[in-house]
């Protein structure tokens, strides 16, 4: 097990280095001139050259690369040329808003996806199955930004049940962050009103973000459960008079959980990616919105920072899934 763990972790480190190389290459094939952008629209030639020296853009590429890697090692993601602020600071500020949104959406996806998957496998080709198939199919095809707009239109604007966008009302001043997750912080401080407010802003974006994830979990879980319920040991258990509930919830679900776990890990990475659309629709102050506004301004340090953070999350999720797989399934460790 230890050997498997070490090998898998080493692979993750190699991948991370590769990802750093990839972002460096992307930033450097860009046809636009970062120095000109940094110097501002009215800058003369001398000021642009000054900016080029200030940002180290006049050095040879390999030197720039070494500097890029060592800076990243110190947690320095460079400076946004549009705002002048260090990207690391911005990322630290925005990341927890995204994390909170993704955690709630993932919880929704798992809590609804697995039971619905089990139900539709148990009642295969009955109305429950047909109903969940509609969720599974449309969950992947619905454009998240359009679904978000429809919810804003229906539930927030027309019915007025929930706020339209943002993370908190502009009049609410959240206290200094403890974990950065508003729901957790407000509970730690015992501030029920703030918790309720944060939750009311979170519900709609979390629903939109969770839908594709819910659809995937549901699909995988259903097909694995159908497979598992056909297995010989299930027939044997039934013949022994094991209760139907126990057969489904223990014997079959256990076998269906490994592939479900894999899709959850994969979906965590994708969620961090599609959060870009959801955050744009709901003005959610996370890394997705930050990446988009920077990309439109042609400011790539923030975009590369977000790419690294999302890629890192994706790799970590895959690593965790692989390790869990190794822990739960001895055949994989041996291979």
């Amino acid at each position: 097990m230890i050997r498997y763990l070490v090998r898998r972790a080493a692979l993750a480190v190699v991948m991370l280095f590769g990802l750093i190389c990839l972002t460096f290459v992307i930033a450097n094939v860009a046809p636009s001139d970062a120095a000109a952008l940094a110097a501002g629209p009215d800058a003369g030639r001398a000021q642009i050259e000054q900016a080029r020296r200030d940002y180290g853009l006049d050095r040879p590429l390999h030197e720039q690369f070494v500097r890029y890697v060592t800076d990243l090692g110190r947690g320095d993601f460079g400076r946004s040329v549009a705002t002048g602020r260090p990207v690391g600071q911005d990322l630290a500020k925005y990341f927890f808003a995204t994390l909170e949104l993704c955690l709630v959406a993932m919880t929704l996806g798992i809590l609804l996806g697995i039971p619905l998957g089990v139900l539709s496998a148990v009642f295969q080709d009955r109305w429950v199955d047909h109903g969940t198939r509609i969720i599974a199919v449309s969950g992947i095809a619905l454009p998240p930004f359009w679904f978000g707009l429809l919810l804003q239109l229906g539930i927030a604007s027309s019915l007025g049940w929930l706020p339209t966008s943002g993370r908190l009302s502009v009049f609410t001043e959240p206290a200094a962050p403890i974990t950065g997750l508003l729901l957790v912080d407000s509970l730690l401080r015992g501030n029920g009103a703030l918790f309720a407010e944060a939750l009311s802003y979170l519900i709609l974006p979390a629903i939109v973000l969770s839908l594709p994830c819910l659809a995937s979990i549901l699909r995988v879980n259903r097909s694995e459960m159908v497979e598992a319920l056909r297995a010989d040991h299930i027939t044997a258990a039934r013949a022994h008079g094991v209760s139907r509930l126990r057969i489904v919830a223990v014997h079959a679900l256990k076998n269906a959980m490994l592939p479900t776990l894999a899709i959850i890990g994969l979906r965590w990475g994708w969620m961090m990616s599609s959060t870009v659309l959801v955050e744009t629709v709901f003005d959610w102050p996370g890394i997705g919105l930050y990446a988009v506004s920077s990309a439109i301004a042609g400011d790539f340090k923030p975009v590369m920072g977000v790419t690294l953070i999302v890629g890192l999350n994706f790799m970590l999720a895959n690593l965790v899934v692989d390790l869990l797989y190794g822990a739960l399934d001895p055949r994989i460790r041996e291979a």
Partner: protein
Amino acid sequence: MRVGLAIHLLRRSFGTMLGLALVAMIVALALAGPFIVPYPDDVQGAVNLTNKLQPPSAAHWFGTDEVGNDILTRVIIGARLSLLVGIAIPLAAALIGVPLGILAGTAGGGLREAIMRVTDLFLSVPGLVLAIALVAALGPGIGNAMIALILVWWPGYVRLAESKALAIREEPFIEAARAAGATQLRILWRHVLPNSLSPLIVKMSMDIGQAILAIASLGFLGLGAKPPTPEWGAMISIARGYLPDWWWYAICPGALIYASVLGFNLLGDGLRDMLDPRSNRG
């Protein structure tokens, strides 16, 4: 596979029939678009301010936009662009990815390692974020958005082609072909490629839908097509500024994105059941 069996399987499944109908509708709109639109002048963005932001009516079924263009007209014309881009992206990605994948799967050794590691690298960042990074570097616009999405999409085809090539390489009939004196190239072209075709068709059908969604997403974010190009995602991005009072503006383009993605997904599902029944669904 026999044609009769294929038609039987097709007709048995409601989902596949629905998918086929939706795809047929989108293709028909794309082909006939310029000839059936009610207001051909509105295609490139004629300005007709006295008529702006009209609610749906007999004259304008889905209302008009902020410069007085008929929304139905612009959405129908948008089908052509979306379908073209939706087909071009997976096609280009497959043209890059499939040869590389077959090469990796048959060559083995250092070459295989090199190809597959680069592939893994591109797959280590979720697609949309990587596409945004590429568009940020290349600059916004529909052309660059397409390039970015092709660069994001090809590694999936390498993976698929490599796994198929690896699996087929060990089959006895390949060995027989080699023993009969067939060249490597002939084996690849006559045996490996045709045997990889079914999963490839299924993947491409699914990917057309996903590519339509991706290009609309970039358009919505302001990184893809620019107005007045009649692109669905870009239209929704403008319509967003006119919510909630002018709600009809956002409804129609979004519904068509949904219909086309749904159509290609369902069709892909159905094709998989027909062509590739043993594969894992996910």
